């Protein structure tokens, strides 16, 4: 089957039921998208499907169809997406394992809602667990990215 990932169409040989996460990681070798729970509880596997944040660990690859998959590797060519810049500026990461998922969720939020309140930030990222507890800076960085996006306009 064909799979459009970060603008490149891949011919993928994988069982239809295989979750998109494992196609990305084990078939395409793109390991930026992480495995954390396998049941859409932790958000580490978040990618965008046509711009919508989606948990790739519970999504059979066959159901992706022609939708565009964007992973952390494709969010920006060099880590300069406003969310990534804010993440560096605010010094968010600790162990870093959950951060691709956090960043993908934050980027999807801001794409749909450029000026979220703190409560809206909290609810949008409530599906992304961080065990290091970097939550406070995650919240600050989403805020900072929103401000930056507005300034860039």
């Amino acid at each position, binding site marked *: 089957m064909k799979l459009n990932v970060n603008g490149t169409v891949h011919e993928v040989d994988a*069982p239809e039921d*295989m*979750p998109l996460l*494992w196609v990305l*990681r*084990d*078939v395409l*070798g*793109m*390991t*930026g*998208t*992480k*495995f*954390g*729970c*396998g*049941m859409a*509880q*932790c958000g580490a596997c978040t990618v965008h499907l046509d711009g919508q944040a989606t948990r790739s660990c519970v999504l059979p690859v066959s159901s992706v169809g022609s939708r565009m998959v964007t*992973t*952390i*590797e494709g969010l*920006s060519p*060099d*880590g300069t997406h406003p969310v*990534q810049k804010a*993440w*560096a*500026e605010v*010094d*968010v*990461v*600790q*162990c*870093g*394992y*959950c*951060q*691709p998922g956090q*960043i993908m969720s934050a980027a999807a939020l801001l794409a749909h809602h450029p000026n979220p309140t703190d*409560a809206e*930030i*909290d*609810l949008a*990222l*409530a*599906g*992304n*667990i*961080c*065990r*290091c*507890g*970097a*939550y*406070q*800076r*995650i*919240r600050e960085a989403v805020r900072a990215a929103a401000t930056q996006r507005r300034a860039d306009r």
Partner: protein
Amino acid sequence: MTALSRREMLRASLLSGAGLFVAFHIPRKARAAAQPPAKPLPDPNAFVRVAPDGSVTVLLAHSEMGQGIWTGLAMLIAEELDCNWSKIRVEHAPASPVYAHPAFGIQMTGGSTTTWSEFDRYRQAGAMARAMLVRAAAAQWKTDPKKLRTENGFVLRGSDKLSYGELAVAAQAQTPPKSVKLKDRKEWKIIGKPTRRLDSPEKITGKAQFGMDVRLPGVRTALVARSPVFGGKVKSFDASKAKGVKGVEQVVQVPSGVAVVASNFWSAKLGRDALTVDWDPGPGATLDSAALVKSYRETARTKGTVAAEKGDAETALSKASKRVVAEYDVPYLAHATMEPLNATVKLEGDRCEIWTGTQFQTMDQLTAGRIAGIPPQNVSIHTQFLGGGFGRRATPSSDFVAEAVQVAKAAGVPVKVMWTREDDIQGGFYRPLFLHRIEAGLDDKGLPSAWKHTIVGQSILTGTPFEKMMVKNGIDETSIEGIVDSPYFETVPARLVTVHSPRSPVTVLWWRSVGNTHTAFAMESMIDELAWAAGRDPLEFRTAMLADHPRHRRALQTAAEKAGWGKPPPAGRARGLAVHESFGSIIAEVAEVSVDDQKEIHVHKVSCAVDCGTALNPLGIEAQVQGAVAFGLSAVLHSELTLKEGRVEQSNFHDYQVLRLPDMPTVTVQIIESDAKMGGIGEPATAPISAAVANAVYALTKKRLRSLPLRFA
């Protein structure tokens, strides 16, 4: 002696066992003595490399698991090397005796010890590298090295300058100096300066490689079916269906269970699902955590092994003008690191290569070598970024690494053994379930005059290679830390602490802040109960008890002032406080909470004041304190593992719940300027939060919650 032969000698001494001095936990009072003895200067080449392109590579003797040493240790090198910060690169060092922990003698990361234990060695390595660069420049300029100075990656003589890159090759040929003078505190330009993390760029682009991300040609993926009951053994298994799953290549038995080896994760998972294993569950089959708490409650009414005793606590209790009796209990907890456990192993001839995120390289080498039947120095470890550690990646038995070596050996192919979240939550190595029973008496001045304390809980270290060092007279140091060395405790004239350490098939382990996770809860809750019983303000009561402990008092007062202690909180809220010393650092926390009409507790603000001695990277310290508070709040508000009929009832984040973003309070962190000996920072802030919240809940509702997670019945 050349650098190489020095390294060889160190290696030989470790592998003969002579260098294996192990003491993971250092009691507070022994910490001064545990100061690493004056050691010969390090081999600078092992810790820092300057390349002709001007890049400076720092080799990290410890593992980066989120705590920020990737940046912190590089700051130490850079401070003395005077290099250009933007040219710094960091790598995990290989497993080698030269990277042994300066205080513990094995290569490892834990106990919030990295920064203080490496404070001298990494600065020395930087200073030595700088001296060699200066000497190379002096040789080129034919001048006296003393006339040269260094700045931002250059050696300078008046207006002449040579870059470190230009000098790199010549510097390599210089003999390392026999002694170096480190900068005086006043000269520091980097130490103490808020510094952003060096590992951010790769971690925000998905490029950072964790153990989970290791991909090597020919490596298969394996999942292991482990006993559903602790201590269970495989009786027999039927792999016919599993072998029919596309991608499954082999099904092999290993000591821990049955491994399904496949071409990818999904095939291995489907293969394992299709496996039928007949288990001999053994005595673990009847385990029940509710019954365990009940039996611990009974046990706590009997005297255990004496851990501390002064005066006659019983008599003093009988004479007290007021008595308070309370029991506190905490459940089993999984670490639930975001990156599930994994290890990739390649066995070839008499060599073993391991790629994993580990906190325990030396133990892994010894264990892997034993299983593979090769000398430990033939085991190479490629440490990857750790997707969280919290202690789980430091098992004395090297459980997840050992198992991966077993699978590779049985299957005869290189394998990556992966754990699912279910494997992780149900796989043991938990923070042990503990129960504390405290009977305390107040004198007529309203201060504690008697304290009788009984602790019941499994020993973490009994039965491990660490037992000899850390279990003394039958008492595991990690069961009593935070009590026998508590500054409150020493003011009580008559006191008795006894310990029961029941055995259980449930495997237990250190969990971020170790014994302090429960001892701080018990101590700081009880102190609060006594303050209320004495009719005194909880802050004033503590301050009175801590008269001889100015650092504790200052931390308390700083946190209390920031929190607005003494001023009325917003409507519907109340504040509670706690202070606790662990890992050489003192942290006071004031929590501001509310309780909604569903009886759910919400923590809105936490004001923290930290005295950790010299503060290397304030930006990192703030992150660690905020993170440790969040980690602790998971246990205060949500997380609990229970056993029924030997089986762990929880399996993933839907029923082993942890803190999420909307739960996260605003945590302010004030770092107290201190010239005290440097302490740790990764763990200490986890300890006091449970009592701070419970005390706030009491202030608000006048209901004392004594079990974690805190719940209104």
